[in-house]
C-alpha cells in the first residue's frame, strides 16, 4: 500500500512503531501533490518548507516519546478560509490574494500543538460561497473520481485532497453543507460539528451564526481523532461551547444495536437520482442488520429550510464582508480619488459575481422596511426548524438522510443557474440554522461516482454520530475505495 493512502490510524501506528518517520510521510505526500495536483487543483498554497520543519520536530517528539498524540507527525491541509499565521490565506478571493494573516486560527493552533504537519492551503469557492469550488477566483478544483466533474463545495479542495491522497485529513468549513457535500462527492468522511463545538476564531466568516469548522477524513474513526484535538471552548470565541469534550475514541466501539434510526419523510421525496436512492436504501438495510430500529419521522418545516438559510446567510455575509473595503485589504484602487471610488473600485473588481450577488441580497433584506419581512421572519422560522429536530429526537437517536439528490455534476453544469446550485445543498442546510451536528460518509456508488449519506444527531452528540458511522464502516467497504488517479 502507498503511504499516501493510509488512514490516520494506520499512519500513526507506523510512526509509533518507528517503521516510518514523519519526514518520510511528509515527503511522500509532497511528492503525491507534485504528481497529481496539476490535474486536481486542490492546493492554493503548498507550505513545503514549513511542513518539512514540522515533520522533523514531530519526529523528535516521536523519538523522545514526549507529547505524542494520534496526530503527531500526520500531514494535513487547511481550507483557505481558515487563517494560518504567516501563511497566505486568500479565501479563494482576489481581494485577499496577498493577505498574510498576523495570527493563527484556534483549530490550526491546536493541531500544530498536537504535532500535526501543515502541508498547505486548500482551494474553495470564493468566501465559501458555492457548492462546486468553481467560484474560486484562482482555478476550479476537479473531482478525483472524474476530472470533468466538480468535487462539490465550498470545501472542494479539502475533500479532493483527502480523496486523492494529497493529505491525511483536512480542516474544512461548513456553513450549510460545505464540508458534507464535497465529502459525499469525493467519497470521504466529513463532519459538521455542533455549532460552537470547535472555535470559529480564525475562520473567515460567511454566516457567523451557521459557520463551523470540521474535519474531512478517510474514516469515521479518523474524524473522531481530529475532532478530539480541535474541539473545546476557546476564550477567543464567545459562541464556543463550555461543555467538556468527551473521549470520542472510547465511545467508538459501542454497539449500535437497539439505537433508533429516524428517516425524515420530507427528505425521501421524488427528485432523487435512482442510483443515490438505491445506495441509501441499501445503507438503511445495513443499519437494520446492525440491529438498529428504523423509524419514520417528520421535520415538517423542511420546505422552508433553504429560504431561511439563505436569507440569514445573505444578511450576515453582507456585514461580514464589509471590512474588505480597500483600506487594508485589496489593492485595486490606487487611483481612487474619493472614498466612494475606493470602495467601488476595490469591491467591484475584487469580488466575484456570486459574492456580489449575496452582498446585495443581504443588504437588501436588512434594509429599512424589509427587515421584518425577511430577516426577522427567517429568524422566527429558524426557531421552528430547531424545534423540528428537537421533536424528531424525542422518537429517534440519529437521523439518516441523503447528502445530495445527485452525484457530482459536471463543471459548468450549474454555473449559469444559481438556484440550481443552491438546491445541491437542500438536504444539508437545515442543520446549520438548527446548530445540530451532522456527519457525511460514503454509502455506495452510482455510475462510478460516490454517493454519500448524512447522519444527524442532537446538539453535542458527535460521539453518537461517530459510533453509528464507525459501526457502518466496520461492515462496509465503500470508504476504502480510492479513485484510480495517476495510474
Amino acid at each position: 500500500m502507498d503511504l499516501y493512502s493510509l488512514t490516520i490510524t494506520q499512519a500513526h501506528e507506523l510512526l509509533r512503531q518507528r517503521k516510518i518517520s514523519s519526514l518520510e510521510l511528509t515527503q511522500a505526500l509532497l511528492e503525491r501533490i507534485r504528481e497529481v495536483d496539476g490535474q486536481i487543483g486542490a492546493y492554493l498554497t503548498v507550505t513545503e518548507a514549513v511542513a518539512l520543519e514540522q515533520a522533523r520536530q514531530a519526529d523528535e517528539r516521536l523519538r523522545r516519546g514526549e507529547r505524542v498524540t494520534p496526530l503527531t507527525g500526520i500531514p494535513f491541509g487547511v481550507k483557505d478560509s481558515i487563517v494560518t499565521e504567516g501563511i497566505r490565506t486568500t479565501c479563494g478571493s482576489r481581494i485577499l490574494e496577498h493577505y498574510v494573516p498576523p495570527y493563527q486560527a484556534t483549530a490550526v493552533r491546536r493541531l500544530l500543538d498536537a504535532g500535526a504537519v501543515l502541508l498547505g492551503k486548500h482551494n474553495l469557492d470564493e468566501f465559501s460561497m458555492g457548492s462546486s469550488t468553481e467560484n474560486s477566483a484562482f482555478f476550479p478544483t476537479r473531482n478525483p473520481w472524474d476530472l470533468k466533474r466538480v468535487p462539490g463545495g465550498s470545501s472542494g479542495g479539502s475533500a479532493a485532497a483527502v480523496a486523492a491522497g494529497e493529505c491525511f485529513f483536512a480542516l474544512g468549513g461548513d456553513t450549510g453543507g460545505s464540508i458534507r457535500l464535497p465529502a459525499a462527492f469525493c467519497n470521504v468522511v466529513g463532519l459538521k460539528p455542533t455549532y460552537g463545538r470547535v472555535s470559529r476564531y480564525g475562520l473567515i466568516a460567511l454566516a457567523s451564526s451557521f459557520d463551523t469548522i470540521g474535519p474531512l477524513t478517510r474514516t469515521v474513526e479518523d474524524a473522531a481523532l481530529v475532532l478530539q484535538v480541535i474541539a473545546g471552548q476557546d476564550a477567543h470565541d464567545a459562541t464556543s461551547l463550555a461543555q467538556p469534550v468527551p473521549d470520542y475514541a472510547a465511545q467508538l466501539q459501542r454497539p449500535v444495536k437497539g439505537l433508533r434510526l429516524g428517516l425524515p419523510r420530507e427528505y425521501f421525496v421524488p427528485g432523487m437520482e435512482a442510483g443515490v436512492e438505491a445506495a441509501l436504501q441499501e445503507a438503511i438495510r445495513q443499519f437494520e442488520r446492525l440491529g438498529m430500529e428504523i423509524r419514520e419521522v417528520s421535520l415538517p418545516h423542511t420546505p422552508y429550510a433553504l429560504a431561511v438559510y439563505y436569507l440569514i446567510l445573505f444578511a450576515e455575509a453582507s456585514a461580514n464582508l464589509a471590512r474588505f473595503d480597500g483600506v487594508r485589504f485589496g489593492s485595486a484602487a490606487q487611483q481612487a480619488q474619493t472614498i466612494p471610488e475606493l470602495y467601488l473600485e476595490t469591491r467591484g473588481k475584487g469580488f466575484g459575481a456570486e459574492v456580489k450577488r449575496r452582498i446585495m441580497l443581504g443588504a437588501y433584506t436588512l434594509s429599512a422596511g424589509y427587515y421584518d419581512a425577511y430577516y426577522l421572519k427567517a429568524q422566527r422560522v429558524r426557531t421552528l426548524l430547531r424545534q423540528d429536530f428537537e421533536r424528531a429526537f424525542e422518537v429517534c437517536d440519529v437521523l439518516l438522510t441523503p447528502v445530495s439528490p445527485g452525484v457530482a455534476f459536471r463543471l459548468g453544469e450549474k454555473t449559469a443557474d444559481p438556484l440550481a446550485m443552491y438546491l445541491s445543498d437542500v438536504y444539508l442546510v437545515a442543520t446549520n440554522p438548527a446548530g445540530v451536528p451532522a456527519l457525511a460518509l460514503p454509502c455506495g456508488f452510482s455510475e462510478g461516482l460516490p454517493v454519500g449519506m448524512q447522519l444527524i444527531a442532537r446538539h453535542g452528540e458527535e460521539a453518537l454520530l461517530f459510533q453509528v458511522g464507525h459501526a457502518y464502516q466496520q461492515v462496509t467497504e465503500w470508504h476504502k475505495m480510492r479513485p484510480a488517479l495517476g495510474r
Partner: protein
Amino acid sequence: MEQKYEAVIGLEIHAELQTRSKMFCACPADYAHAESPNTHICPICTGQPGTLPVVNRAALEQGIQVALALHCTIPPLNIFARKNYYYPDLPKGYQISQYEMPLAVNGWVEVPVGKEGTLQRIRIRRVHLEEDTAKLFHQGDRSLIDFNRAGVPLLEIVSEPDMHSVDAVLAYAMHIRNVLRYLGVNSGDMQKGVLRFEANISVRPAGSQELRTRTEIKNLNSFRALTRATAYEIRRQIAIYESGGQVLQETLGWDEEHEVTLSQRSKEHAHDYRYFPEPDLPPLQIEAAWVEALRAALPELPEARRQRFIEAYGLPVAEARILTAEKSLADYFEAVLPQTQASPREVSSWMIGEFLRHLNERQIEVEAVPFPPQALAELLNLVAQRTITMATAKEVLREMFESGAMPQAIVEARGLAQIADEATLMPLIERVLQENPQVVESYLNGKESVFQWLMGQVARATRGKADPQLTRQLLQSRLDALRRSRL
C-alpha cells in the same frame, strides 16, 4: 421673539470608559498615552478576517454603574447589534453597538437650571455600550489611520427631548459629566475627546405640545460648542418659521470658526444602518444579584454628597452645590478639612472665593493645582493663628499658585508674618496720627467713619502685616485717650 417659541432638545452623549482593555479585545484602552500610532492594536481591533469580539466585563460593570446612577432600569437580557456603514475609520465596516435590547432604559436626572438653579427632571431614554472608531489624520492629499482608539469602550447616554433651553442643555451635560467623574469611569477631559455630544433640536410655538421636524447636530466636543451650536440652531429654526419656511430634517455639523451649523446629510440621504443582532456575541444574561452588587458598590454621587455637605458641615445650599458640582473640588475640600483649624464654612468660602477665582483666571482644573490640600490647610491655619492677615493670605495664595511653594515657607522667606505686638505697632499708630492731624480732628468732631481710613493707613505702613484686631484695639484706645484729653 424667542418667547413666542419653545425649543425641544434631546441630547446623545458619547462617553469613553476608562477600562484597562478595549471593549472587545485585550489591547490597552488608554490610547491617549500610546507611545505612537498603531501600537495599541491587535488582529481583533483592526478587523482582521476571522477574528471575533469578546465582551469586556469591566466595561459592562462601568456601564451598569452609570445607568444605576442615572436611575435606569437594567433589563435582564442585553443584546449587541451590528450598525452597518462604511468609513475608513471603521475597521470591520460595522460598529458593534446595541439597538433593540440596550444595557439600560428609562432613567432620569434632576439638574439645577439657570441662575436660580431651579431643579428640572430630564428623562434618560437609554444607555448602551459600543466601540469607538479609529482616528483619521489628514496630511495634504493623504489620510492616515491610527487604530489605537478603535475598539475603546463607549457609553452612549440618550436623553428624552426634555430640555427647552440652552441653560438646561448645559446643566444636563455638566451633570452627566460630573456623574461619570464621580464614578471614575471617564476623565471628563473634553479636550481629549472623551466626551462628545449630539443634539437633536426642534422648535415649536410656546405652549404647544407638538413635536416638529428636528435637526441633529453631530460631533460637538466641548460645552462651548454644545451651547453655541444649540443657541444658533434654535435661532435658525425660529427665523425659518418666522419667514414662513419649513425646517428640513437633516444632519448638521458645527462650524467652530464661523459659528454656524452646516448641512451634512438630508433625510433622503440619511444612513440606513441595517442593524441586526451581532451573531458573534450571544445575548448577555444580566443577573439581578450582579446588578445589586454593583448598586451596593456605587460611590457617593453628587446629590448625596451635596446633602451631606449641607447637613454635616452646615454649608449653605448654594455653596454645597458649587463644591460638589466637580468631584475633584469636593475631594479637595474634604482633604483640606481635617488638616485645618478653620471651620468648614471658612474653608468653603475660601475655596469658592479665592481658590476658584484662581482656577478661572488660570483656566485650570483642580487636578492641575500645583499644591496639595495640605498646603491650603496650612495657609488657613496661619490665618486662624493670626500669624498672617487675610490680606497677606491672599497674596501668599497667589504665590502658591505661581510657584507651588508651601505657605509657611513663603511667609518666612518674604517676612510676611503678622505684626501683633504692641511695641512695634504703637509707634506706627502714633506716626499715622501725627501725619494726619485733620483726619484725627474730624474723628474727634464726631465723624467716626474715618476710623477705617486710619486703620488702612496703619495696614499700608506695615504692608498689610498689622494684626487688624490688635491695630483696631490700639488705635481705638489712642483716639479715646485723645478725646479724653480734650474734655
